[in-house]
């Protein structure tokens, strides 16, 4: 399991049949210092994770199999919405903006000032 930040969403029409009614989110894995690492990941979600929120992602495919059937080609599932992370002597740096921004629904667009590269 690892922490990840939800940075987007994804739609797909051609996909494995078991994934027909699944919500796909784009997430970036977080390190302990709050930086992202690795390539962006497609995660399956049924908890309603919001844009910018920190989530707990499990890499155990059994959860996806129980949920969507034994033939589902999927591993990464959101298993929790993170409220806070305690580390002795310091704060998890990611959570502050995440909590400040609240759990925005994904349908709500970010303000232009929040989008990198916006004028």
């Amino acid at each position, binding site marked *: 399991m690892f922490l990840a*930040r939800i*940075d*987007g*969403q*994804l*739609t*797909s*029409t*051609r*996909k*494995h049949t078991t*994934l027909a009614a699944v919500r*796909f989110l*784009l997430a*970036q894995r977080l390190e302990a210092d709050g930086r*992202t690492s690795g*390539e*962006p*990941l*497609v*995660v399956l979600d049924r908890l309603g994770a919001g*844009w*910018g929120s920190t989530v707990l992602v499990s*890499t155990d*495919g059994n959860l*996806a*199999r129980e949920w969507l059937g*034994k*033939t*589902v*080609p*999927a*591993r*990464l599932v959101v298993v929790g919405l993170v409220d806070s992370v305690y580390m002795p002597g310091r704060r998890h740096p990611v959570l502050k*903006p995440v909590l*400040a*921004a*609240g759990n*925005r629904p994904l349908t709500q667009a*970010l303000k232009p*000032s*929040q*989008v*990198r590269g916006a004028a």
Partner: protein
Amino acid sequence: MRLGIVRGQVVLSLAAPALVGTTLLLVEPVNAENLEARNSNGGGRSLVVADHLSPGEGALIGIVEGAEAANAYYPGTAPVDAYCALVVRDYEFRPPTTKSGPGTEGH
């Protein structure tokens, strides 16, 4: 699932019986920078992905890796560790601004 761009197809002259009927795609994973820039560049280390969906060259696909890649062959088995689970139609990807500034104001 990571995202990758289809760069080509791999054809075998001889294959394990379980792989008959599976096409093999040569895929380049996409990193965050290129995904955000939508520049059709990948940036990751290429891998071969088993596939039943026939995405075209240049298509963006979701790649399931690990033992779960073979789930699609259940109840049979197949010696694959990467499988094309979906073809991306559209996506939104906007990491928060890295600079601290007015970004989180008012929330």
